[in-house]
Each structure stands twice: as structure tokens, then as C-alpha cells.
């Protein structure tokens, strides 16, 4: 099976869907002729023409607003926000419009759009190229929120998102574009060509929304993670000799509560890891659900390892990033607790 980077897998998903469905259109800043600053749309304009894949003005609100109008017409727009950090001008269009259109019109109009955006840090992007704003979207009724952690899932989840009848926020951990990243920033990068999850089937397949997956079976504790943090958690468990069960959530909304509850009920311990800031982060929702559904099985307090409640700094990137050392400490403390 061919191995691909996450960039190639994402491009492959759009290519597959553009081929199958004339109503799929792709646009965003630098997305057309150039193929996107991360090259995710490279070649799509040449293949499908510039009315199917085109450059947009630097206006995130305009991009999403236009996509909503296109969806109301009957197209399936897949738009790119160049960095998740730039999405805020589009927030009103996402929250007040895309998310509620089906509801407020009682299904008269719907909004099957996919809003892709690179998220997360680890590339020295500073405060405007590193954010993880997933909780700002999981708090909104009517959206779905997806965070892939590898090329195989990225393609299957993006195809599923493009086939979904409702708006999907698709957060791409940019540090994973070219290879898995376990947080050891001082070590050489492993490419996806050397990782089994870099295997991306040709053609159409889906990874269903709302289904988590166990990346590692284990007995001692459960780690809930998504995106880049899946690999950080794997490294932390291995380096500390902990038999952790690592769950890659893949979709945050709707959430696969069943898989979470089944695992924590078994292990009795739970560590939640995300790169986004702590307060009111998605980890808070996970912790609340775990205590509600697994209270009588818990042997220790539910722990959270996250980015600090500061803006994402530049020079202090690795002090901010919840790397394997911090995650490892939390795993050990939770085992002792």
C-alpha cells in the first residue's frame, strides 16, 4: 500500500471527492494556483479547473460566508483557513450561521461545508500560527469537530466530513503533516514513510465520524488524546514503562463516549492530554464526563496535561508544549494517586 504524508493524504481526500462529486469545490487563501501554503491543494486547480479550486481574498469571514451561500445553493464547499489562528473573523459565520442554519430553517436550508485549518504548535509559529481552538467549536451546537492524527485517518475522516450533511470543523495538526511527532523536538523527524499509519489506500474509503480508536491497549491507565498528543502520550508511556491504554479520539464532536467509558471503567485511571490551554479546554468536558460515567471505578483523580493558560509563545515553545516529560509525570502521579 502506498505511504503518504498527511498533506498528500488530505489532498488525496479532496481529489477523490472532487472526482466523484461535481458539487465539491475547494477554495481559500493561496489555495488555487499555488496549492496552499502547506501544499494541501496542490494540483487540484490544474486538474479540476479554476471554478472548482480557486484563490480567495484574505477574508476568512468572506470565505466561510460565501461557502454557506454555496452550500445553500447545493454545492459541497471545502474551504481552507490558512491557519486556525486566523479563523476568528469567520467565527460569527460559523457559530451563528453554519451551525444553526438547519435548525433555524427547520431543514429548509442546510450547510454541508468542511472548514479545514492547520492547528497546533511545534513549528515555532508563535502566537498566531500555533493555536488549538477546538474547544471554541465543540461548545457550539450544530458543528462537528474532527482532529486526525495520521495520514490514513486524515484521508478517511476528510472524506467522511465531505460526505456529512452538516458543517464540519477539520483541524489538521500541522506538526504531523510530515511525520509523527512525539514531542522530542531535539531528535530527528520520523517521516510518515516509516510509519504504518502512513499507509493510505487509494480511492474512496471513510473513517466514520464519532468513532475513537485505541492506539495502544493497556491495563494501568487510560490516556485520552487527539492529534499530536497521541504520539507524545505513546512516548511518555513507553519511556516510563507504563502499560497505558491510549485512545485517539479522532472526533471531538460527536464524541465516542462509549469507548472512553469502557476503557476508564477497566483501568480506573485517566489522564487527558491536549495542546490547547487548560481553562475551559476540551479536557474539562472529558474530565466531567469521565467522573460522571466512571466515578465508582476511579482510583485516582482525573488528570489533565495541557498547554499553559498563556498565549502560545515563540522562544518558549518547548516550555509551553506539553511534551513527554510533563505527560510522563502526570502518568506516574495518576498511577500513584
Amino acid at each position, binding site marked *: 500500500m502506498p505511504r503518504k504524508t498527511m498533506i498528500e493524504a488530505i489532498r488525496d481526500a479532496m481529489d477523490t471527492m472532487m472526482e466523484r462529486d461535481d458539487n465539491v469545490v475547494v477554495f481559500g487563501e493561496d489555495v488555487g494556483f499555488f496549492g496552499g501554503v502547506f501544499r494541501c491543494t496542490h494540483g487540484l486547480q490544474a486538474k479540476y479547473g479554476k471554478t472548482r479550486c480557486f484563490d480567495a481574498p484574505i477574508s476568512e469571514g468572506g470565505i466561510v460566508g*460565501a461557502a454557506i451561500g454555496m452550500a445553500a445553493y447545493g454545492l459541497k464547499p471545502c474551504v481552507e483557513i490558512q491557519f486556525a489562528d486566523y479563523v476568528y473573523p469567520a467565527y460569527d459565520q460559523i457559530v451563528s450561521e453554519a451551525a444553526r442554519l438547519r*435548525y433555524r430553517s427547520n431543514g429548509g436550508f442546510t450547510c454541508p461545508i468542511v472548514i479545514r485549518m492547520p492547528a497546533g504548535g511545534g513549528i515555532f509559529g508563535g502566537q498566531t500560527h500555533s493555536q488549538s481552538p477546538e474547544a471554541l467549536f465543540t461548545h457550539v451546537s450544530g458543528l462537528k469537530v474532527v482532529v486526525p492524527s495520521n495520514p490514513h485517518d486524515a484521508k478517511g475522516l476528510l472524506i467522511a466530513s465531505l460526505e456529512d450533511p452538516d458543517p464540519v470543523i477539520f483541524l489538521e495538526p500541522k506538526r504531523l503533516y510530515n511525520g509523527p511527532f512525539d514531542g522530542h523536538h531535539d531528535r530527528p523527524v520520523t517521516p510518515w514513510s516509516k510509519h504504518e499509519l502512513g499507509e493510505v489506500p487509494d480511492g474512496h474509503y471513510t473513517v466514520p465520524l464519532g468513532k475513537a480508536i485505541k492506539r495502544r491497549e493497556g491495563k494501568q491507565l487510560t490516556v485520552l488524546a487527539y492529534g499530536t498528543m497521541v504520539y507524545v502520550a505513546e512516548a511518555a508511556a513507553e519511556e516510563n514503562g507504563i502499560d497505558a491504554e491510549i485512545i485517539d479520539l479522532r472526533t471531538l464532536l460527536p464524541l465516542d463516549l*462509549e469507548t472512553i467509558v469502557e476503557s476508564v471503567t477497566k483501568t480506573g485511571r485517566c489522564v487527558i492530554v491536549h495542546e490547547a490551554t487548560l481553562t475551559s479546554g476540551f479536557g474539562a468536558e472529558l474530565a466531567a464526563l469521565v467522573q460522571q460515567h466512571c466515578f465508582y471505578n476511579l482510583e485516582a483523580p482525573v488528570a489533565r496535561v495541557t498547554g499553559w493558560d498563556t498565549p502560545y509563545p515563540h522562544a518558549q515553545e518547548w516550555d509551553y508544549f506539553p511534551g513527554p516529560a510533563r505527560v510522563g509525570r502526570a502518568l506516574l502521579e495518576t498511577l500513584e494517586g
Partner: protein
Amino acid sequence: MPDNSSGEFGPLSLHVPEPAVRPGGEPDFSNVNIPEAGSVRRPPVDANPEEIRDLAFSIIRVLNRDGEAVGPWAGELTDEQLVEGLRHMMTLRTFDARMQIAQRQGKTSFYMQHLGEEAVSCAFRKALSPGDMNFPTYRQAGLLIADDYPMVEMMCQIYSNEKDPLKGRQLPIMYSSKEHGFFSISGNLATQYIQAVGWAMASAIKNDTKIAAGWIGDGSTAESDFHAALVFASTYKAPVVLNIVNNQWAISTFQGIARGGAGTFAARGLGFGMPALRVDGNDYLAVFAVAKWAIERARRNLGPTVVEYVTYRAGAHSTSDDPSAYRPKTESDAWPLGDPVMRLKNHLIGRGVWSEERHTQAEAEILDTVITAQKEAESFGTLHAGGKPSARDMFEGVYEEMPPHLRRQRQQAGV
């Protein structure tokens, strides 16, 4: 603290615009320059926008003070069409009056009327073709009335009753009807303007023949979505008509706060290379003629047009404000463009196809029709009495398929 002790030009000061008059003062519209009816030229639909920039600073008018249709924009409508237009405006006005009272009677929470602005949406609708899509604000119900959308359904929506087509999920008057080319009203402002452009782009992408119309008020042109819409519309030459209804007031804020230093709202379009026309919004014939021009331009793939309707909001913004707190009570009477219903009525009388008697008779018939519809709607309930949407409906339709967390919550709510 500022340092204003030195410097060549003295201290700075902030300019905060004020309307010409406040409550207690004499209404003054001397600053509104009203050209003679029939005096503004009518360029060909494929005119180069650069050559018709003057139209953004004038006002296209057809009906003169004597009620005659004059000039190059006249002659678009037959007597029958004009009588129908009059009836639509009268229906909208009567509908508003009844619903305004119903709100005061506690039958619904909120209402917004069109008083003085009926011509804009009623005439525009008649210039569109089936399949075209409006992206309206909250003051274009004439688009539905003039398209024969059932009044009972409108009222059921206003009452949020058991037959409310929107299941009680939306504020009164936030209608939605794909079949009648009426996009779901948001209630947030300006968001629909760029969506109209996106819809029009989609129609062009699919090599369709349908066009879109975006709607916005004078105040909301200050929103960034307005500017995004103009950028996208002009960049992609989208088949869209971008309507700006300048009714002089954004709740209590006069239009000068949003307009800034520009002479007119229409002039915003000029910076984007778009044709921009200003029209007498209280003149049914002028609104129709300009709408037809702009719609044809879009349909011929010549791109977007900005149209500013100069009108006046004679009533309150909504049932939640009292205009006498922010403008002279008599300002409405002083508005120099008159009342759209009276103007069309007088024109039709002048043409010999209408009379005071027929008008009085039509008023009675329309009132009867509206009351009959209202009785039927109220038989399905009002906001606080009778049939209403179920609590179960609250959980439906957030997604196409209800996800597990909502199913759990619905179960918890016991519905």
C-alpha cells in the same frame, strides 16, 4: 495625560456625527437632495460602471409630484401589474398593523413592521424570476407577500404555534422558505450579504441561470460581512444584486454613523468597480425599474450591482423601541419622498384605473382576508396559549442525524 502644550496645529478633537435634529426640534431634510422625477438617465444594462458613477449620487425617480410616471425609467409595468403591486403593499401594511396589535395583546413576543418601506420588497420581488434567491433582513416580508406565500404560515411562525413551519425555534418574523426564494433570516446582521454572493457564485460555477439578491440596512453596512460581500462580488463578478435599504435609522442611530464620510451608501460600490444606483425607495415604479435593470445585468453575466433604496422607516425599529426618544415625532410626515402606498394609489387614480371608492373597497377586502388568516393561524395557538411546538422539537434538527449526546439530553429532559 495628553501633551497639548506645544505643536504646530493645536490639540486634536474627535468628530462624532449628529443627526440634523433631535426630539423637540423641527424635522429638517434639507440636506437630502431630491432630483426631479424622470431627470436621471437610464444607461444600457451593459454600461461600463466607470461611465455611470454619477448614478451613485443621484436618486432615480419615476413618479412626480402630480403622480405621473415620467422619464426614461417609466413604462415598465402594465395597469394590472401596478394594481397588483398596490394590493401587495396594502396587504403588507394591513398584515403589519394586525400583527403589531397581536404583539401588544401578548400573542407573540416581538414584531417588526415595514411602515413606509413597503414598495422596496414588494416591487423587487416582481422583478425576480422563479428560482432566484433572496438573502433578506428582517424588513423584507414583501418578498413573501408579493410571491403569494401563505399569510397563515407567516402568522403561525410569528405565533410560534403548533403549525409554525420553523417549529418554534426562531424569533417572530425570521421566516424561511426555499420554495419562495427566501433564505432563512438570521437575526444577526449582515451575515446574509456575503452568503448571497456565495449562492450567486455557486449558480455561476454550475452554469445555472439563477441569480441572488442580498439585502442589508444602512446601519449594517458597517459590518465587515458587507465589505467581504463587495470584495467577493466584484472579484468573481458574481450574479448578485446587492441591495442597501437606507431607511435613515438603525434603531436609534441615524444613518450618518454608518455612512462615515461617503456621500451615499451606494458610493461604496464604486470603489469596487461595480455599478451603483440610488433609487427612490418609496416609488414602486422606480424600485421595479431599477431592480429589473440590476437583475438583468446579473442574469446576463455582467456581474453585481449595488442598489441603494432611499426610504424612511416611518414606524419604530421593532416593538421594543419608541422612536420619539431619538427623533422628532413629526419627522415621518416631513420625509420628502412621501408614502409609497399613497403615491402609487394617486398614480393609478390619475391613470383612470383606480379610485377612492375602489381603494376603500380594497382596504376592506384586504383587512377581511388578513383577519380570516389571523383567525385560522390563532386556531393553531399563539405564543402563550393553545397549540405549540413540542419540547421534543427543540432537540430535532440540530444535525441531520441526532448524535448520542443529544439523545441522552432529550431523554434526560423526558421528552
